[in-house]
């Protein structure tokens, strides 16, 4: 299984991180394969520019689902019970609208968290290497898996940048 091993370098400052990334790019690796692990968001760097996510659209879908659920819950149960109160009709759309609204928002919120957890690969196991030094401010750069040949080449380049983690 050696072919699946990844290689990372522990950089102590942002400039080195950039160098490490550049090294990987120069080795012909696509940006999407390069992993940067840091204890803070590194937004200003080129490697941070990821392609757009579809999160908002999924959230809208979740909202629509939640809203539909809310409307169905209120309208169907109201019709099923068919009890009139306060001289109002059995189906009170005005008040159902409020519950529908809240459930729309709930749908959106829950979708957001679910989409986040899934796309950020949280909760579900991932086997990325990790070094507690990251929380001391260091940045890990590398790839999750590389063929042995490529790995050696990368290791060579990483030596100048910092400690290597495999």
């Amino acid at each position: 299984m050696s072919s699946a091993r990844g290689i990372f370098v522990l950089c102590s400052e942002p400039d080195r991180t950039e160098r490490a990334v550049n090294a990987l790019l120069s080795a012909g690796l696509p940006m999407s394969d390069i992993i940067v692990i840091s204890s803070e968001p590194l937004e200003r760097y080129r490697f941070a520019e990821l392609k757009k996510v579809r999160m908002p659209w999924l959230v809208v879908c979740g909202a629509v689902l939640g809203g539909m659920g809310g409307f169905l819950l209120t309208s169907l149960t109201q019709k099923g019970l068919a009890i009139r109160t306060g001289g109002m009709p059995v189906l009170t759309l005005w008040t159902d609208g409020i519950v529908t609204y809240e459930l729309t928002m709930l749908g959106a919120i829950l979708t957001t968290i679910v989409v986040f957890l899934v796309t950020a690969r949280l909760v579900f196991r991932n086997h990325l290497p990790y070094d507690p030094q990251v929380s001391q401010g260091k940045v890990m750069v590398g790839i999750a898996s590389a063929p042995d040949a490529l790995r050696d080449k990368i290791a060579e380049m990483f030596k100048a940048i910092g400690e290597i983690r495999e």
Partner: protein
Amino acid sequence: MAQTAEQIQRDLLRPVLDPSRRAKPVIAGLALLVLAGFSAWMYQMYTGIGVAGIRRPVFWGFYITNFVFWIGISHAGTLISAILRLSNATWRRPITRCAEVITVFALLIGAMFPLIHLGRPWLAFWLAPYPNQRGLWPNYRSPLLWDFFAINTYLIGSLIFLLLPLIPDCALLRDNVTGWRNKLYSLLSLGWRGTQKQWHRLEAAMHIMAILIIPVAVSVHTIVSWDFAMTPVPMWHSTIFAPYFVAGAIFSGIAALIIAMVFLRSSLHLEEYLRPECFDNLGKLLLVMSLLWFYFLFAERLTTWYGNARPEIAVFWLTQRGPYRHLFWVMVGCNFVLPFPLLAIKKLRTIAGTFLASVAVVIGMWIERYLIIVPSLSHKFLPYAWGTYRPTWVEITITAATFCGMALLYLLFSEVVPVVSIWELKAGLREPVR
């Protein structure tokens, strides 16, 4: 901005890694008072709701006042934090988390009160829509049902809004502790690594949450106001109530936030982080809300006075010149007369100044809720059925206990996780100064 990332991390992790010994007796004291409140509640459950001071026609008293008050306080956090996040205000970074925590705890406390006030609290689950044998569903026409949905949505949303940015900091803690605490923080960090993708998703999710939580927060206090505005009770049945309540909620929320920050600042030695600028900015916000509150109050009072409709005017004069006049003028003093100069004059808008104003506002807003609920109920349409209300020790104990409970939860929270977001501060270091 003299700090470095290391410094930030060291300062902010200290309260968690090495909690102050002085906090222990405070925690014990607060816990004792919370226990007293809990006992009072149990006593009320056992003996009956009659041990509270409510009576005909004032069927709602301290408990619903507290409910509205705490739900109002809960608007501190999430709403402010969301607005500041969306507007990308840099000074938000040290205060977002302490604000969001207030939301969650205040909501939890606030949501307890409808249960406390029920005649038969053991049946409270009948509010929830769940399939059952008899085919009975709750009545969606009832504003209490709207409350149920709104508060639950808001609670879930705020909890997520608080916990999302907490994940990287939990990961940070995970790397700094050992033993059971390591396991705890590992669990809380959900396997966070800190890849650029995770960071990106987190920011995206926070952005979406910030957008979502604002309309939810607005709807929550709108619906709380509709608990009152939907009923034909003099001075309740008013269209101004929804914005009035929302504005009041944000008003009291900011005040609560300032108070919390002052305590955090001194007890956790966060002088470097919760800097006077934060208080100055929040002070300005509080000033705006104070003016807005006064505007709503005036609009409400003027309309009632000018309209001169019999039932409303009776309640109007009851609060203006009747037995509630003292409370009324204390409220105006606390919410406007005192805060206005403190917050408007730049020299006075210091930490001490904003703190003083905030304490006044919190007191004033509690009174405001009391004055909205009790006088209206005590003077409904038929004068023969007019009545009074006087709280009993049970209500007072429970009320006091919730304030202690808030402090206790806050204190415990600040000992479990960094109450200022470390990664956001760090990110702020790299932010170009605008």
